């Protein structure tokens, strides 16, 4: 056990502890942003003890936990944290947190919604352009020496005039919609509820949205309702020219059915930053030129990570000073 600083010794009584089971990427990359006068980190991953034993021994008085997709907060984990009052994630998504259990126990949850909206929207539209205009496929073609050998690459499809269905019109979906308009796309959307002040046509189901769209961009969170919401039925009505872009969560799409549709040419293409079982990507996709694959990275920039870390620290400092949380997740 290293003792390079008093604060890093988890036995110190000075500062309240924030449990971290596994470090989220933002902590790994920007650890210096998490140094605070109001709390210290209790780094479970640095211990050789099995997790439940570590928690039993050291986390009995822990009031806050910083989690990530790699270290979900399940009911079992919560049970081992009797003093827990706050769960913080550095991501926009909260699907790795048992929200029902948190609500039942009066545990607050904060996320980083908002800080990833612009970068996420840039990435989503970038992937759509890539698939429609075959940017990555053409790049491979050139690098493989095929341009002199085989001549011109294939024609792509124009963005302007395309009807693009945005699934989920929160901060992220709205940022996507705004950018799509600049390309002359027509924006349509589906959301849990219609948003009266929004100029885009609303569709009450994803199936109806897909039937009327040329492309779909997934901008919603993963919940019990949205799991596998995009399935074979939806993809078939999207159609042979249809393109789907997903930078939200892999499990919103029934991946097996999507892969079948792609392999059979029942949809036109896909831009995917997220998958059901990362980092595993279905092998069949590697042979397809109408698919763009990204390792759950295309949204992230140093700026959004720094903003996320500042939001995490801000929430923690507010919590430990008994001030209102900056970005609480509101239970619906």
């Amino acid at each position, binding site marked *: 056990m290293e003792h390079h600083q008093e604060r890093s010794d988890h036995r110190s009584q000075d500062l309240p502890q924030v449990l971290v089971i596994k470090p989220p990427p933002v902590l790994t990359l920007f650890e210096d942003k998490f140094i605070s006068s109001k709390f210290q980190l209790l780094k479970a991953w640095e211990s050789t003890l099995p997790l439940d034993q570590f928690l039993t021994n050291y986390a009995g008085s822990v009031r806050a936990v910083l989690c990530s997709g790699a270290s979900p907060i399940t009911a079992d984990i919560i049970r081992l944290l009797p003093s827990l009052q706050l769960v913080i994630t550095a991501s926009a998504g909260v699907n790795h947190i048992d929200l029902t259990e948190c609500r039942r126990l009066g545990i607050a949850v904060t996320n980083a919604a908002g800080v990833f909206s612009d970068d996420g929207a840039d990435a989503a539209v970038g992937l759509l352009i890539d698939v429609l205009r*075959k940017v990555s496929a053409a790049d491979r073609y050139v690098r493989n020496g095929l341009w002199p050998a085989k001549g*011109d690459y294939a024609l*792509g499809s124009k963005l302007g005039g395309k009807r693009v269905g945005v699934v989920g019109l929160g901060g992220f979906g709205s940022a996507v919609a705004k950018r799509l308009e600049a390309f002359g796309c027509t924006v349509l959307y589906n959301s849990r509820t219609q948003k009266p002040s929004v100029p885009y046509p609303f569709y009450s189901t994803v199936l109806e949205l897909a039937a009327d769209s040329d492309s779909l961009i997934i901008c919603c969170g993963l919940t019990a309702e949205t799991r596998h919401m995009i399935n074979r039925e939806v993809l078939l009505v999207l159609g042979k020219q249809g393109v789907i872009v997903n930078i939200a969560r892999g499990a919103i799409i029934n991946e097996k059915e999507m892969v079948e549709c792609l392999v059979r040419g029942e949809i036109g293409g896909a831009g995917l930053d997220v998958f059901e079982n990362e980092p595993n990507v279905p092998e069949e996709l590697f042979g397809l030129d109408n698919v763009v694959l990204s390792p759950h990275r295309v949204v992230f920039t140093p700026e959004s990570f720094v903003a996320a870390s500042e939001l995490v620290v801000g929430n923690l400092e507010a919590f430990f000073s008994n001030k209102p949380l900056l970005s609480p997740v509101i239970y619906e």
Partner: protein
Amino acid sequence: MGYHQKPQYLSKTLEQDLLLPRVLVLRSPSVPSFFFSKSHLQAHFHLVDPLDSPEPTHSFLSRHAASVLALLCVASTRVSSETLSLLPSLKLVVASSAGLDHIDLGECRRRGITVTSAGQVFTEDVADFAVGLLIDVLRRVSASDGCVRARLWAEKRPFPLGVKLGGNRVGIVGLGRIGSEVAKRLIDFGCSIAYCSRKEKPSVPYPYYSTVSELATNSDVLILCCSLTKETHHIINKGVMEALGKEGVIINIGRGALIDEKELVKFLQQGQILGAGLDVYENEPHVSQELFAMENVVLAPHAAVYTLESFAALQELVVGNLKAFFSNKPLLTPAQLE
């Protein structure tokens, strides 16, 4: 009757065909087939095509094209002063590509030959492609796609973070229609726009710089949207790239020779600029081999105009200009010959 039906060459009689206005078609065998739709044209015109004959073009033109009034130049096929000298009756050159640098415009003007351009049929697609290249370079989309396909994600190789788009100072080199459409898109991504052009454009809200060097000094990204002329040849040179700096990105959807390609390769190799997205090169279809190994470069095969929709619109425009000419109506897209 075949004249007005869906084009089918065999449905026209020889007599009907000979009554149609004659249009000379010049196309180099190496140009992409997308630019030339024979069936579209044959419904309305009698095509005189040197490639239909075993004769060398020079003598074919002398023997068959002396009375031709209109020429369709397919894609980037060269129309030189020598070619024009073999066409004493020529009054119209119909271009079918975004650029006009392969046509001797000076000679056309001297001979009183009108040239029509491809108008706006390609503008939006080129602008979309430029933005796509920029996002790809900044966010490493193609490079990451390659890594995933090489199964490197599962190996837990760390991937570098991409660069944010918003807040970038984008310098547009040549603020014509294409440059304006690029600017309009990037504003909604949170970029700021500045430009340089032959002349300042007073109705434009973006800051103007009179030289590319000054523009580069004040930009994070340069997007080349200008035409290739004597003045713009190698306009992106060592000095401009130094002014752009180590964090700079260059996107070229204009012409390869706008950039000193050898110098660009050196700058990229030495990490003296951040990256590049290129659709055009000095010696197409040959691309400097050194670029193939670079992850911070996105390479496209001169495909910025390549959509089904733009080529359909091009065919309509080409036919429209020719029909207007032969019926003495105003041309749809006459080009300014400076």
